[in-house]
């Protein structure tokens, strides 16, 4: 800055008073001399205007907001005591998921692929037609939604009432059926006493094979043996002493067939 005198003030002095003048603290004779020098000096006049403009530019700058994590980072890097709080903050920042939401998420993960398939037009049309047919059928049969609601009533008092009503129906049914059963038993006894010599169709079988109640082994043996021509007679022959004495040979034939 050129240092020359203008209006009783040197440029060096003007430079020192420039800040005070811009701050508004320069008053009285100093202010008059300052203004006179600013008007007369070709170097200091523009300097005053530029300094004033620069000051207004800077005053227009606003404070910037520090990052939200700055304080936590500082505390963690200095004392380290805030790392726990930092972790807590990070944990709390994550959305808390309830067990219901987790269950819904897992179920939706299972259902979603199925739902994607079902949403295809052909499946949707099929389900629509099925629902329509079901609703028409129920309407024709006279089933009302109120009836279904009554069946699905799960209140404890209603369940108890249903239990007792069902029990009463069963008791009434048994009481009604008992005379009929007694009558049938009596008729059966009379028939048996009237025809004592008539052999029953199952009597001979039960005598031949007392321990067998299902008749399955006989049928099975018959099926197996009937598949070989050599023992066709044995399979169809009535069981007697001759057959019983040949049990060993029959078993050996069967075993041979299995290994062949």
């Amino acid at each position: 800055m050129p240092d020359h005198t203008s209006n009783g003030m040197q440029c060096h002095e003007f430079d020192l008073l420039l800040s005070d003048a811009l701050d508004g603290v320069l008053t009285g004779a100093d202010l008059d001399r300052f203004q006179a020098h600013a008007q007369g000096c070709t170097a200091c006049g523009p300097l005053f205007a530029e300094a004033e403009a620069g000051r207004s530019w800077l005053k227009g700058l606003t404070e910037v907001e520090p990052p939200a994590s700055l304080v936590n980072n500082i505390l963690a890097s200095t004392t380290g005591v805030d790392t726990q709080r930092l972790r807590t903050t990070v944990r709390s920042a994550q959305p808390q998921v309830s067990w219901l939401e987790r269950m819904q998420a897992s179920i939706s993960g299972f259902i979603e692929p199925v739902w994607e398939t079902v949403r295809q037009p052909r499946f949707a049309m099929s389900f629509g037609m099925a629902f329509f047919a079901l609703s028409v059928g129920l309407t024709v049969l006279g089933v009302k939604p109120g009836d279904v609601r009554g069946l699905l009533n799960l209140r404890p008092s209603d369940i108890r009432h249903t239990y007792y009503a069902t029990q009463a129906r069963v008791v009434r049914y048994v009481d009604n059926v008992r005379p009929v059963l007694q009558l049938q038993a009596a008729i059966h006894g009379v028939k048996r006493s009237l025809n004592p010599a008539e052999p029953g169709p199952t009597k001979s079988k039960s005598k031949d094979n007392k321990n067998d109640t299902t008749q399955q082994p006989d049928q099975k043996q018959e099926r197996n043996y009937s598949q070989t021509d050599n023992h066709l007679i044995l399979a169809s022959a009535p069981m007697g002493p001759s057959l019983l004495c040949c049990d060993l040979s029959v078993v050996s034939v069967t075993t041979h067939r299995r290994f062949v």
Partner: protein
Amino acid sequence: MEDVQVVAMLVRRCIAGDAAAWEEIVQTYNRRIYNICYRFAGSGDDAEDLTQEVFIKMYRTLSSYDHTKGAFVTWVTTITRNLLVDHFRKTKQDRMTDSMDTAASEHEDAQPLSEQIPDQKPTPDAHVRSREVGETVHQALGKLSPELREAVILRDLQDMDYKEIASVLRVPEGTVKSRINRGRAELARLLQRTYRQVM
């Protein structure tokens, strides 16, 4: 700005190991320090790193603070300024940074710094918006020499008085005033030329 006794008590509690006192100090001064670093370094990431470094240094040297020698905010600002100077030296920004005066005197043929500021706002209406203007001023501030930049930041952005600035910068008050005036004037010249080009 601060009650000396309250701050002194806070510092004593902090030295005694009171974590809550240290947290209160961090909560009180982090915004101020971050803004100084941001305006000086020019980048948010650098400002965040520098702010953390300032607090680390402050935490280690807190016992050296003597409230009878000066305000705590001056002490904090001095630490910040020293770290900024170190950072400036490390990043070699002084090779890229120049002032209008040196550009005119030493590089007569060189392009003026005002013309080096990128013209990012093509229409005059865009400059009306305060955010864009603020960004332009911030860029122009980064073009000032570090001595002028720190002086105007402490005075016009942090509202420190000349005595405190002189204490932080360790220069006489007259030098502080001169730097502030030159810094303001140079900034205005940079911005005027930028806007004149746009207009």
